[in-house]
């Protein structure tokens, strides 16, 4: 979507956003026995067959890849919940529904590595894709409302991956508006050529109230 011309504006790579998402907690059901793990990022376990326990995504993925557990998909990843979200998402053109901050990455990781653990996986996948599309459409139409004197944009419930994707464009658009709106830009031409400026600057004032 957004342009990539300025590398400084896209601060996080998508791999880094995924890295952050891998610390989100998920419930697993191990099929092995293992003593508790005392890790730098926290203590997890003990692991006993058929007894559910919570671990970070990366740990769940590691165990899953080795066939040591099944994953319980989070509650929001059910057909019922997602259908509700999609409907609400469509019904409220100006708001984003509350979803986990890393919903894109979590669902992606689960689709890639634990699809057999997700009931109705095809349905769930297409629902999430629809939700993403609707949300992106909203972000795009939200961009149209950016104008001079926009000092703040509220994006409650926008998720991490969505933030990362729209960041370069958003920041550049806001910066451009800010720059052209700053008093320096407006007053500078005053000294040099007066007449042609006056006509130009008339309508500018209308933009002020916000």
């Amino acid at each position: 979507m957004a342009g990539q011309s300025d590398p400084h504006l896209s601060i996080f790579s998508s791999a880094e956003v995924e890295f952050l998402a891998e610390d989100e907690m998920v419930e697993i059901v191990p099929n092995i026995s293992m003593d508790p793990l005392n890790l730098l990022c926290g203590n997890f376990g003990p692991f006993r067959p058929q007894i559910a326990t919570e671990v970070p995504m990366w740990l769940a993925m590691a165990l899953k890849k080795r066939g040591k557990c099944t994953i319980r998909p989070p509650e929001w990843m059910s057909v019922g919940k997602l259908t509700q979200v999609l409907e609400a998402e469509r019904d409220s053109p100006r708001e984003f529904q509350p979803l986990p901050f890393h919903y894109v990455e979590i669902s992606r990781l689960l689709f890639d590595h634990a699809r057999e653990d997700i009931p109705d996986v095809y349905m769930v996948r297409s629902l999430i894709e629809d939700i993403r599309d609707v949300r992106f459409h909203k972000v795009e139409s939200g961009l149209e409302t950016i104008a001079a004197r926009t000092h703040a944009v509220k994006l409650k419930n926008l998720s991490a991956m969505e933030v990362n994707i729209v960041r370069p464009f958003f920041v550049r658009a806001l910066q451009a508006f800010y720059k052209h709106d700053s008093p320096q830009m407006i007053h500078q031409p005053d000294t040099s050529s007066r007449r042609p400026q006056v006509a130009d600057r008339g309508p500018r004032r209308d933009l002020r109230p916000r």
Partner: protein
Amino acid sequence: MASGSEEGLGLGSEEFDPISAKTDVELLKRAWRNEKASPEILQFQEALVQRAREQTQLSEGTVEEYAEDGTDPLRVSLYQMDLDRTQFLLRSYLRIRLQKIERYMIHISKTELWNRLSKQERKFATSCTDNLGKHLNQSVLSRLPYGYQDILKQSISSEEDDMVPEPQLDTFVFCKSKGSVGSFQLDDVGDEIVDLIADDLYVLRYKSIKALVETGQIDLV
């Protein structure tokens, strides 16, 4: 052993998060994120980095020990993964800071930003500035006409140092408030007021929330 930090231990000025006591890894992640997303260099998290170093060293020892005494390879690899993740955070955090220093070294050394650097970073900045100065003098500046030879000024008639790159504080950042910050004024001149409530996500000008980032009331995302 290599567990998360005991809460309440070694609480420096940098982390005061009474609502949710966090592990050092989480604090490091936050510092990394903020550092990555903010245009200027932030306060070096000395105590935190020190603790993270000690913990990764401990964990390295554990992994080695396990690898030797024939512990379940799965366990060893999980410990290794955990260690790798933390080390990535630590290295990436230090690297972003170095990148910022390289980009803005002269500006940093002239302002109060200097106090935000660690001892090693200051050393790096000083030698970097020296090298850059020497290089530019030898390759370009010494061959320019008199009056245009200053590394900090465009020409002798410049009143201030106008050849020093500075971080752009006017830029916009994405941020999330942790708790309710309440309303605060966005601009020094404007009448624009924003009411930040918990978990809200905003795109704001960095300058206007700078203080809130520095005190840890707001996180950049």
